[in-house]
């Protein structure tokens, strides 16, 4: 947050005199102001010769602070925002859409949990192709293990690229492909760079096509390496990543789809990786598993902010 000095130009009462008054009490920044006791500061100000201007300075800093938090909204405003801006994106996979009441919710983080080869990436690719094709929005795909496959996307669109495609179909395929932006990300710092850049672009409205879906496949392979060891930095980075994603999702109406692997829990029963702290991050957690020998997947809700857990569905992943 800003040092008081940087507010000098905009706010007339935060002048050098006021800054000196604050500096005597160890207040140099707006942050310091947040931590100080305003009541006693006002009492101090009253003892000074120019108490009126000092008190006006305090009021001005408070108005700056008031702009630092999200606005207060009442229930009706919130509801209007949700109905107007937070749409539901179909994943193109009927089983999942049925289970989630239509699909992925914009503004929410949905997490797919499952062991290796349980169909997580397939669901991601299918959701990406469906949103790119049917929802007229662009998809940001952060690929952490080189598993993105353009062929698979073409396949889900129903237009496996071969030479027999006619002009019109070729155009559709091109549009879908143009709408999916894939980035290879191999560590959490790069992910922060990419996400901060995305937020900057969204804020300054530089993005050509509205980003509606953000996929990170898989978030756990970025976070697991930084956990453990001594110190809590790993956890701090993990929680920060979670909040950045929630902020992006809510403020810019993006649906976020994450994948997470499973680890052995108590008694060998697999459980989601990333531990208890991460549990509070996603809105929706889905557990994926695939039957041996065929392509039928089952999916069940582990956690949902408004639905009972335990509901399940089955769906099929069609082969190439």
């Amino acid at each position, binding site marked *: 947050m800003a040092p008081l000095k940087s507010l000098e130009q905009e706010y007339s009462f935060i002048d050098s005199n006021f800054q000196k008054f604050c500096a005597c009490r160890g207040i140099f920044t707006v942050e310091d102001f947040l931590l100080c006791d305003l*009541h006693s500061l006002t009492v101090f100000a009253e003892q000074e010769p120019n108490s009126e201007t000092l008190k006006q300075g305090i009021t001005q800093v408070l108005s700056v*602070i008031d702009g630092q938090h999200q606005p207060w*909204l009442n229930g*009706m405003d919130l509801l209007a925002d949700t109905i107007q801006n937070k749409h539901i994106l179909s994943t193109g996979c009927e089983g999942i859409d049925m289970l989630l009441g239509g699909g992925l919710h914009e503004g929410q983080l949905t997490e797919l949990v499952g062991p290796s080869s349980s169909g997580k990436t397939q669901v991601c690719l299918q959701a990406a192709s469906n949103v790119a094709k049917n929802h007229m929005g662009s998809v940001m795909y952060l690929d952490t293990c080189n598993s993105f496959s353009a062929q698979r996307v073409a396949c889900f669109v129903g237009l496996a690229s071969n030479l027999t495609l006619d002009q019109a179909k070729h155009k559709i395929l091109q549009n879908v492909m143009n709408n999916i932006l894939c980035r290879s990300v191999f560590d959490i710092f790069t992910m922060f760079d990419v996400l901060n850049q995305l937020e900057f672009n969204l804020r300054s409205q530089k993005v050509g096509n509205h980003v509606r879906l953000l996929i990170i496949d898989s978030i756990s392979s970025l976070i697991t390496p930084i956990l453990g060891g001594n110190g809590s930095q790993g956890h*701090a980075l993990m929680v920060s990543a979670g909040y950045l994603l929630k902020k992006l999702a809510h403020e810019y109406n993006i649906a976020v789809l994450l994948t997470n692997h499973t680890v052995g829990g108590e008694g060998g029963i697999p459980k989601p990786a990333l531990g208890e702290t991460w549990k509070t991050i996603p809105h929706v957690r889905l557990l994926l598993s695939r039957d041996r020998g065929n392509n039928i997947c089952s999916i069940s809700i582990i956690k949902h902010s408004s639905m009972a857990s335990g509901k399940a569905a089955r769906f099929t992943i069609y082969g190439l």
Partner: protein
Amino acid sequence: MPISVKRWIDGDETAAEMLARVSTERSVLLLPPPLHRLPLRVGNVVELVGPSPSAKTLILIQAAINMILPNEWNGVHYGGMERSVMFIDLDCRFSILCLSEMLKHRILHSNGSMNKMNQKQKDIDMHNCDARRKPNFPYDEELYSMCMRRFLYVRCYDSFEFLATLKTLHYQLQKEKEVEHSSIHLLMIDSIGAFHWVDRASSFLPLGVTNRSHSVLRFLLDKKTAIILGYKVTREKAGHVKGPWRNWEKPSLQSEFETVVQEIRKLVQVHPMLIIATKATGFGDRTFANDASRRNSVLDTLDTRNVASNTRQLPYQEYMPSVWQSFVTHRVLVQPSGDHCTMVDHENQSLYFSEWLLPSLGFLDKFIVQDGGVLAQVTAST
């Protein structure tokens, strides 16, 4: 004897008068299970502790609905308190659709129960509730929107936003009083430990630490982490550079919560409110055992009162600073029962346990989440 002293000794009301005054001014608030066990009033600070998920946010939403509904409206009894509530969302997972659905469910339920005599009529009404054209009691859009407007919400993405919200809450309350003419009786914080990890990391970064040997790689990683976690170069601009590390500044967890508690305490003095804060646990998890013991040793050095509370064998790992701990007046532990379909007769019901830790009541309550998010206590016989 001077008159002033005599008047002071005489007092100005009898015990009966005082009791009558206090019970109207500080009346017991209607709260859903499991908070109904003890009378809670404005000025109390209740902490709901539990792992995720354990219906904590749901309890908050139901408490909010009890507050925002009127006691009576158009001749129908709703049993609410007709007050505004404030919800500070630190978890950023609140869904307004959830509140809206539960509120509608409660309104329809109250309307329906008035008409229980005529079961047939009720069935028709339930049928028509989507069409919203019921002849006897139409779906009351006015009541609904009035209640929704009494629910005030803010979300915070980091602890600075949280502090900024608290710092300016006084003005917000004043504004609300002028607009709505009803004072706010309930302030909810979901959940109080949300930024714990991010804020605590500051005590682990080598900030201002003298002569610690760090490899270049370690240095770069710490610096990167520090930037991501929001450490800003502040003192340098303010002209107070004391060393290469001094630049990275962030208030410690302790001073942050000292401010949080101080702000809330001052607020409650001017605007009497009940505070309910949720707190996620889960650090007592077996996989975190190593981590927990290490954290303990860290907390030892941070503050000794925590250790005292740890020796009392809490069912979870306490991690909040002691200044917050001592601010809490009531504490309830909620936990999901191992398997959530033990009540087989209804399908969408999960069973939860709750236990009062402060004051310790020494027994477990069971409650279920029914259709529409209604919380109901399960009697011991089941």
